[in-house]
């Protein structure tokens, strides 16, 4: 656009002067500068202008009235004219000036079509440079800008802002990367200058066919969905629950607290885990900004950062939560007995049950897969036993549709299944336990109320702890879970406390005690208790068998001795020990619910079901999908402290970016469908990695969501009808560049 200054005086004269001189079809608007001293009101002026232009080509042209000082009245027509391109070369201090022949570049750029200004700056990105650029754009009435300098990845944003300030659409900028991809990479000055000239030419040709794009903003929803009500999810939810924000805490189990609440004590300070968690769980359940949905599964997550639409299915508990007081009368009445998975199957539960004593929420749940009534038999014993009418067989599953701005996946971990290994005896020998089962055995709320006993009820005199089960081996999980050495040391400490006469054999290949507390804890353990660490080459290769009730553990022992040359000598000998009980420490893996959730969230998990983070160090709690965060053991194996820290970190990310009342900017360079050309073949629909394309059954065309599209252009290249336009990377723009680079 170019503003044409018209002489002055009254509008009548303006029209007489301009009409024969310009192609009036191209007039975009008329700007009238009206001196306030004249005392003409805007309404009168508009009327006057309308009567004067009636029947002329200017009849329906937009009029902008600007109040000025004095008693003058003047006007200008804003008309479309040929594009005026400015080419700005940055010398980048001495960097480019010396590496390229600047006078030659300037001369070459001047000859290019539509280029009205070529100018070199010593440092365009500096404050002075930016100011000079803005002034030149204005004074030369530039319509498009080419900047030749550093990579667009360095300063495209900076210069887009300058264009905006100078009144040009920021998408009418093209940057020729004559620094990184020319001067700095070419050894010959002449060749570099030739290439730079070519790059500038390509940028000018391209910028001439670029289109202005509108930057849009959309409202955000500040509410957050947290998946998993373990220590991580609860920590995140509590941090997020602030004014003007609601948190939905979704838990697939009937209770909150995750795995941690089922431990007796936790390392390194041997603090009672339920005591530590109780206040947190209480705070979660009584926080009016947190809605906890137990027995619930996420079914669908659509949308994008700031605006997700989520479906959560809340499975019927069969007991009305507000009516139930948690007395447990219904549980006693139930005739069905099943293994209790909350106690790692070391005890029984009923078909209506509380997972463990002290569970929160303290409301029983009906296991419909095993309840006689739900299996079609006549039974209503629990209903009859309830004095409060809380048992409700007719309760329906409920699908909740939630709107949230962000999602935090805190789905925790499961243990590597060591049973298929066979040689370690898990699942075959009753007194071989997993670490989680042993945690429950030591817990006061567990199957033995904290007593360490064998299946036959006897007290074990020797307990073997086996490290690294399924860990640190290419055959199973190649990583170290990082916490097993610590919790096995905790086990040894607790065993010593409960059974001082019992010997502990800790069978390991390498030990890992990071952090400021665990090494002293371990050394104290060795000093004060009857614990022996036995080193073997590979705990996964142990053979654990049983003869006459005694467990026999055989393996290869490794002894290392320094030899006189300063190296080490490794001497192997057979390990052969007996124990009454074996506890395995299997590798931690991502939760089994992570895999289906990964598909819903569109965030991949790795081979061990850990969600893949955006960056392993800098952004371990974010994912590649904006607005979906991941925390705690859902991301990688961690201890309680690490999980809490990550949960709060993820919450902090959300707090800083999802501010109630603020809007988020949308990327304008996205793809759009030309409905007239779309044949409705749906090729694009399945190709889009962001599910941004849907099919309009009425119009028989594809529709691209401007907010979901990230502008990758996969659909553009794939459309057989050429009906999809990749804005800012249109075919004609890319082809203009190709041609300019070659001819």
């Amino acid at each position, binding site marked *: 656009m170019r503003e044409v200054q018209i002489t002055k005086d009254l509008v009548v004269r303006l029209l007489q002067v301009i009409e024969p001189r310009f192609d009036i079809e191209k007039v975009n608007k008329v700007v009238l500068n009206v001196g306030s001293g004249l005392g003409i009101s805007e309404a009168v002026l508009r009327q006057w202008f309308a009567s004067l232009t009636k029947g002329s080509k200017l009849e329906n042209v937009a009029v902008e009235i600007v109040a000025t000082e004095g008693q003058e009245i003047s006007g200008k027509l804003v008309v479309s004219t040929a594009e005026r391109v400015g080419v700005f070369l940055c010398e980048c201090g001495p960097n480019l000036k010396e590496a390229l022949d600047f006078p030659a570049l300037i001369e070459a750029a001047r000859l290019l079509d539509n280029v009205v200004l070529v100018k070199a700056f010593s440092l365009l990105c500096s404050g002075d440079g930016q100011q000079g650029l803005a002034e030149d754009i204005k004074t030369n009435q530039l319509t498009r800008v080419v900047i030749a300098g550093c990579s667009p990845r360095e300063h495209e944003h900076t210069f887009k802002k300058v264009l905006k300030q100078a009144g040009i659409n920021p998408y009418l900028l093209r940057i020729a990367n004559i620094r990184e991809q020319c001067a700095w990479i070419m050894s010959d000055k002449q060749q570099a200058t030739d*290439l730079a000239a070519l*790059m500038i030419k390509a940028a000018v040709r391209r910028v001439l066919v670029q289109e202005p794009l509108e930057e849009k903003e959309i409202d955000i929803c500040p509410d957050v969905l947290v998946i998993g009500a373990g220590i991580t999810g609860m920590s995140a939810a509590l941090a997020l629950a602030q004014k003007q924000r609601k948190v939905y805490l979704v838990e697939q189990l009937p209770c909150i607290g995750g795995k941690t609440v089922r431990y007796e004590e936790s390392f390194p300070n041997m603090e009672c885990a339920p005591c530590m968690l109780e206040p947190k769980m209480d705070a979660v359940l009584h926080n009016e900004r947190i809605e906890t949905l137990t027995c619930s599964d996420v079914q669908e997550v659509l949308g994008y950062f700031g605006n997700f639409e989520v479906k959560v299915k809340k499975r019927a508990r069969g007991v009305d939560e507000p009516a139930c007081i948690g007395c447990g009368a219904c549980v006693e009445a139930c005739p069905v007995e099943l293994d209790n998975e909350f106690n790692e199957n070391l005890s029984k539960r009923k078909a209506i049950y509380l997972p463990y004593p002290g569970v929160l929420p303290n409301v029983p749940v009906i296991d419909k897969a095993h309840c006689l009534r739900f299996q079609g038999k006549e039974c209503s014993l629990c209903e009859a036993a309830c004095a409060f009418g809380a048992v409700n067989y007719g309760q329906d599953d409920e699908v909740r549709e939630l709107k949230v701005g962000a999602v935090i996946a805190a789905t925790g971990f499961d243990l590597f299944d060591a049973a298929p290994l066979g040689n370690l005896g898990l699942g075959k020998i009753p007194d071989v336990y997993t670490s989680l089962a042993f945690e429950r055995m030591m817990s006061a709320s567990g199957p033995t109320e904290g007593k360490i006993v064998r299946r036959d009820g006897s007290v074990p005199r020797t307990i073997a702890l086996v490290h690294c089960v399924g860990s640190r081996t290419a055959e199973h999980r190649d990583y170290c879970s990082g916490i097993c050495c610590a919790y096995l040391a905790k086990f040894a400490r607790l065993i010593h406390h409960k059974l001082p006469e019992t010997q502990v054999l800790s069978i390991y290949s390498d030990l890992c005690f990071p952090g400021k507390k665990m090494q002293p804890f371990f050394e104290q353990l060795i000093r004060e208790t009857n614990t022996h660490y036995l080193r073997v080459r590979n705990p996964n290769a142990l053979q654990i068998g049983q003869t006459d009730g005694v467990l026999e553990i055989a393996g290869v022992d490794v002894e290392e001795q320094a030899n006189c040359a300063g190296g080490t000598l490794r001497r192997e000998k057979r390990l052969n020990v007996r124990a009454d009980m074996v506890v395995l420490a299997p590798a931690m893996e991502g939760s089994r619910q992570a895999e289906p959730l990964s598909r819903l969230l569109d965030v991949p998990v790795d081979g061990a079901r850990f969600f893949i983070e955006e960056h392993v160090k800098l952004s371990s709690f974010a994912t*590649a999908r904006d607005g979906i965060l991941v925390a705690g053991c859902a991301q990688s194996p961690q201890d309680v402290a690490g999980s809490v820290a990550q949960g709060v970190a993820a919450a902090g990310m959300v707090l800083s970016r999802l501010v109630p009342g603020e809007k988020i900017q949308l990327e304008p360079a996205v793809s759009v469908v030309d409905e007239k050309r779309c044949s409705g073949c749906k090729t694009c629909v399945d190709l889009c*990695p962001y599910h941004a394309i849907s099919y309009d059954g009425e119009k028989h065309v594809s529709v691209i969501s401007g907010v979901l599209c990230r502008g*990758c252009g*996969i659909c553009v290249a794939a459309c057989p009808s050429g009906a999809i336009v990749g804005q800012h990377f249109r075919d004609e723009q*890319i082809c203009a560049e190709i041609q300019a680079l070659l001819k």
Partner: protein
Amino acid sequence: MSEQFQPKVVAFLCNWCSYSGADAAGRAQRKVPAELVRIVRVMCTGRIDPQFVLEAFRQGADGVLILGCHPGDCHYKEGNYKMLKRHAILEQVLSDFGIEKQRYCLDWVSASEGEKFIRVAGEMIETVRALGPLRLPHTAESKETAV
């Protein structure tokens, strides 16, 4: 130098990995031995319409190079796999047109692989130099004047 054939190679680079990789080469002041490929930035290799490659050859390119994120690293998750599929077809089509296979190449360069960018771009220039100018029947005339 002026006697030597100077190959014109157009390189399509994805914004996230390969374009950054080329920038990284520049920042490290790693120099290409001779000419440089002529870079066209696209957001993703998945955006590369096979027609762009054909257009480049039609407009007089002696070679076309496509560089994207390594498989599994695509900023848009799978755009490079889409390119890989088109690549197989393109190779076939180009050889049907009488364009030697070596004139067209797809490779992966990450944002940190400045060295690799230099190597791949350099090898492409030398491969095409060895092949000589591309002579297509309908562009033969314009090629004569260009060379």
